[in-house]
């Protein structure tokens, strides 16, 4: 939440540099009474999830978009309400945001037994969930727009230019550069999934780099998202695996004592089945989360040093801006590379599961 204030401040500074001056006062919840900035709080706050979408803070006034909270409690049943009802520790129908403990920042309820628990089901449309919806809508409209462009033309027409040409370039890059060589036979069957995964990750990464609404949410840096993506790849790999693929896992070509009587190699291979999606999950998550954290930390330098004096603060602001610009550019690169790597590894795993029996 606060991080957005800071990001807005960063944006303001960038505007100032280009001559547009916006008098914006940045303040943050993470600034304690004596003016210290809790950097850890700021960063964790940003890369985590939230029930509202904080835009900025103007003076003491928080501007945020309330999002629906959808919870199902064992005692109170199904409840849907907007998140601004939970502002400043207020409770609504017995639901409130926990301020500490295991469920810090989450919606909890106090049962009649006096116990504080999470609702059984919490399907709240949180900031990241809303961001997923926005990104999905954006992705669908972009790709459908492009495909509409194509369905209105014939193959003998001119090649597309501009935006459609750019999307085509990306699609062809993934299609010809990753899917065809990595998957091998039957690549058309897997192309839609791999392309969807690539564009979903790439778009989410890019949206995450935009500091203000509708971007800025740490979507691909959240484990739930990367886990779902990795599970999809896991299913694509293992549901359509060939006989030869399963034979190589369960009865690999190793000396007999390594698979019988103790199935050493099969156990390792089966373990390997699950490490692959796990690696996919963590790689994407860690890369994006780290990028967001570093940019936030660099922005925080401004606030930390400003509390130490105007001169130091001013000069460090320039340094921080330079570093932030550099990091943002680097993150653009990472956004692309991580989408590329995820797609390529998925394609390679799928290709490995399509092996045919070959004579030695």
């Amino acid at each position, binding site marked *: 939440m606060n991080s957005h204030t800071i990001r807005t401040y960063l944006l303001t500074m960038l505007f100032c540099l280009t001559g547009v001056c916006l008098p914006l006062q940045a303040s943050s919840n993470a600034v304690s009474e004596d003016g210290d900035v809790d950097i850890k709080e700021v960063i*964790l706050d940003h*890369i*985590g*999830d939230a029930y509202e979408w904080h835009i900025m803070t103007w003076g003491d006034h928080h501007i945020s978009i309330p999002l629906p909270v*959808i919870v199902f409690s064992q005692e109170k049943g199904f409840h849907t309400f907007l998140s601004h009802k939970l502002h400043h520790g207020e409770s609504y129908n017995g639901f409130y945001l926990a301020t500490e403990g295991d469920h*810090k*920042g989450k919606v909890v309820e106090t049962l009649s037994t006096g116990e504080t628990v999470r609702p059984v*089901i*919490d*399907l*709240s*449309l*949180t900031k*990241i*969930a809303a961001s*997923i*919806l926005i990104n*999905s809508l954006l*992705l*669908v409209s972009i*790709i*459908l727009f*492009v*495909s509409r462009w*194509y*369905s209105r*033309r014939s*193959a*003998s027409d001119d*090649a597309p230019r501009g935006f459609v040409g750019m*999307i*085509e370039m990306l*699609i*062809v890059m993934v*299609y010809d550069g990753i899917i065809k060589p990595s998957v091998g036979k039957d690549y*058309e069957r897997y*192309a*839609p*999934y791999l*392309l*969807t995964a690539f*564009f*979903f990750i790439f778009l989410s990464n890019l949206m995450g780099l935009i500091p203000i609404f509708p971007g800025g949410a740490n979507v691909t840096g*959240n*484990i*739930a*998202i990367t*886990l*779902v*993506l990795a599970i*999809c790849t896991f299913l694509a790999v293992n549901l359509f695996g060939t006989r030869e693929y399963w034979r190589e896992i369960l009865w690999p070509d190793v000396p007999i004592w390594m698979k019988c009587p103790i199935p050493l190699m099969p156990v390792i291979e089966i373990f390997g089945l699950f490490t692959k999606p796990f690696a996919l999950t963590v790689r994407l998550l860690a890369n994006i*989360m780290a990028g967001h954290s570093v940019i936030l930390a660099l922005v925080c330098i401004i606030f930390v040093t400003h509390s130490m004096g105007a001169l130091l603060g001013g000069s460090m602001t320039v340094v921080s801006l330079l570093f932030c610009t550099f990091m943002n550019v680097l993150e653009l690169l990472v956004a692309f590379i991580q989408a590329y790597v995820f797609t390529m590894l998925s394609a390679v795993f799928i290709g490995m599961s399509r092996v045919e029996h070959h004579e030695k």
Partner: protein
Amino acid sequence: MSLFTPDVGLIFWMLLSFGIVFFVLAKWGFPVITRMVDDRKRFIDQSLEAAREANAKLEGIKAEGEALLAQAREEQRLILKDAANTRDRIIEEAREKARTEGALMLEEARQQIQHEKEVAIRDIRRQTAELAIEVAEKIMRTNLTTERQQMNLVDRLLDEVEKN
């Protein structure tokens, strides 16, 4: 730590939206585009092939034209050569004819001249004889008027005959 514990709500939203996105894009999005790109690639390949063929055909036509041109040039040369030969032959023949005819005419002329000459000579001879006779007559008419003169002549003639 909450950063590494997947939130069930988020998983639900992610599964739902990613599933819908995947379904929509796999049905109406990417296949349309990739098919079109493949079609265009095939079309470009075909166009290239057609262009190559057309080029080859053009090359053939050019070579054919050049061959035709060369052939025509050769024929032209032959015709010219033939014409020159014919011309030379005709001239030669004409010259030959002229020569023989000239010779013939010359011969004829010569014969005529010869004939004329003979006629003339005969004529001259006759005239000369006539003249001589005339002269002789005249002389005789003048000189033999007298007796004495006649006798002189007879004597002289007799002398001459005797001398012979």
